């Protein structure tokens, strides 16, 4: 077991593409760290550099208290689970799981008992003599996990290990991997582009974009205290609504709507005090907007409803807010339904608003987020 430290890690690929810029962070011993970010942001690159499968262009990588920049993957004492599982097709499940132990020249009896133990934990005992081609996707995934855990390595690296499974199995395996990791208490780095996976599994989450680390924090902090517009929009689903607004004293003007900001916000973000005509980016999450007809509030806005998605437990109400919409810069964010510029509110299913109405919306003003329009970083 060991912690992992990244110091000013850069990756420039052979074609001069600068994939990672000055990556800096520590992963604590036993921690479950998730790398998350849109496609192409460099998650796999970072993971493969830690694995030793990709060279480090500059910077220093430590595992435990060793600098491992130039150490072979086989000598780094880490196990990896690949997105494609990479099971050895000519070997049985038993041989697949035993392979790393054979390479480590463990005695046969020790290999047998460890393989059987791993198979028991992962419920693979009945499948030990099958070849991978005869397994289901979920079973293959387990074999890949088995091959990683038998070794009792210093760290696990997993690159989107669940992305080939169907939605239901994914949720189930998500829980199993997380609880297995807690039980084994092995430092783990888990790559995903699914922010729900990131939030539910990680002790901490590293959010990346375009090869630059945006924020490393606990899921709670990422949700409550995003450092910039990108993290704010990336974490949470549906995304945070982001608009340009003007703050004057305590009055926030959002398009044709104005309302008062409560004291708490100024305690939380002291540098907003005494604003006069200050341009800001304001962010509010769908869950912090309600139908004012059901839950009135001191901060209300009104906007035309363009679409209502009734999901049973809640209604996603799309609103046409007449302020300048802010693009958070997530290339993967596509409005699955409706206009991406529309604000989305999470109304109680009791709400009776319908498309075409002008809705009165109660905004939970204590939960507003404020960002600088030019640097796009949070205003504290």
């Amino acid at each position: 077991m060991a912690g992992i430290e990244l110091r000013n890690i850069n990756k420039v690929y052979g074609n001069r593409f600068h994939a990672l810029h000055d990556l800096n962070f520590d992963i604590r011993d036993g921690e479950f760290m998730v790398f998350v970010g849109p496609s192409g942001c460099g998650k796999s690159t970072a993971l493969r550099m830690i694995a030793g499968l990709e060279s480090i262009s500059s910077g220093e990588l430590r595992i435990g208290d060793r600098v491992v920049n130039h150490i072979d993957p086989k000598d780094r004492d880490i196990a990896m689970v690949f997105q494609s599982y990479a099971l050895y097709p000519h070997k049985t499940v038993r041989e697949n799981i035993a392979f790393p132990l054979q390479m480590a020249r463990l005695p046969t009896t020790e290999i047998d008992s460890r393989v059987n133990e791993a198979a028991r934990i992962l419920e693979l005992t009945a499948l030990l003599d099958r070849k991978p081609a005869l397994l289901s996707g979920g079973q293959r995934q387990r074999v890949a996990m088995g091959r990683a855990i038998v070794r009792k390595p210093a760290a696990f690296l997993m690159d989107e290990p669940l992305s080939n499974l169907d939605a239901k199995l994914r949720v189930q395996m998500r829980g199993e991997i997380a609880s297995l990791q807690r039980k084994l208490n092995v430092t783990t780095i888990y790559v995903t582009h699914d922010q729900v996976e990131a939030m539910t599994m990680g002790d901490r989450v590293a959010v990346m974009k375009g090869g630059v680390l945006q924020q490393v924090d606990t899921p709670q902090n990422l949700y409550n205290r995003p450092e910039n517009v990108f993290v704010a929009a990336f974490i949470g689903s549906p995304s945070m609504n982001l608009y340009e607004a003007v703050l004057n004293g305590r009055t926030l003007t959002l398009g044709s709507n104005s309302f008062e900001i409560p004291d708490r916000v100024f305690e939380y973000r002291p540098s907003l005090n005494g604003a006069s005509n200050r341009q800001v980016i304001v962010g509010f999450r769908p869950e912090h907007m309600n139908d004012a007809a059901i839950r009135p509030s001191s901060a209300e806005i009104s906007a035309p409803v363009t679409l209502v998605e009734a999901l049973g437990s809640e209604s996603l109400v799309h609103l046409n807010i007449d302020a300048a919409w802010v693009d958070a810069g997530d290339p993967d964010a596509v409005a699955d339904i409706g206009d991406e510029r529309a604000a989305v509110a999470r109304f109680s299913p009791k709400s009776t608003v319908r498309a075409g109405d002008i809705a009165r919306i109660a905004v939970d003003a204590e939960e507003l987020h404020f960002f600088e329009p030019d640097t796009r970083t949070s205003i504290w």
Partner: protein
Amino acid sequence: MHKARHLNVSGILINGAALVLVLSYALPYMYLLMTSIKPAADVQQIPPSFFPAVLSFENFREVLRSSTLPKAFVNSLTVAVLTTALSLAVAVPAAYVATQYRRRITTLFLLFALVTRMVPSVSLGVPLFQLLKSLGLLDTVPGLVLAHTSAAVPLALLLMSAFFEGMPRELEEAARMDGCTRFQAFRKIVLPVMTGGIAVTALFTFITSWNEFLYALLLTSEATKTAPIVIAEYNSVYGLAWGAMTAAAVLYSLPVIVVTLALQKQIVGGLTFGAVKG
């Protein structure tokens, strides 16, 4: 209903086309086979008949009794086996490196291999003759093996490259994470996974050498004459010995057919690579 009829018509067309194709390959061989089992006297009968009037193994007895053909068979086999071994030893690692550690130079390398296949072997024959002569390897097994290997390696290289391209990179990476050096990963994981592809390549390499005529004609005289040369000579040395010639040709084609059937499973496995992923 309408759709089913439509499918039927196109099914008949496809099967018909396949039949024509198969016959166009099979008929000449069938004719060879039929001729070989006619009595020597009937072979040049006019008008020729497709089926033998009487069954006779006279032709086979004759070619097997002569000392030239069995010896040529041994030569052919020796040369083909050694050529296959040498070609694979060169082409398999080279193709692996060229595909897995892709650089501009490795791409160029594969392209070059392709180009050498475009030069007609006639134009390479004379320089090869000079080369082997200066090495004292004319009319020797190693000499012909080298010549055949030079012809077979580009083909083996291209085939193996295609197979390696189809293999997920992660297999080798997983092996390296599991404690292998690059070479161990190649030997313990990559090679066993590629047995199908290697079998296909071995077969094609073997056939290339087994069937090769021109280099064998130029580079051997007595000691290492291969079977294709001897078969061709039935037409010159003994006048027009059609019967013997067809019998020798049938015998010569048998090993290839047997090996192909024996390797059928690997060949199909090698050509349908999906198994690795799934």
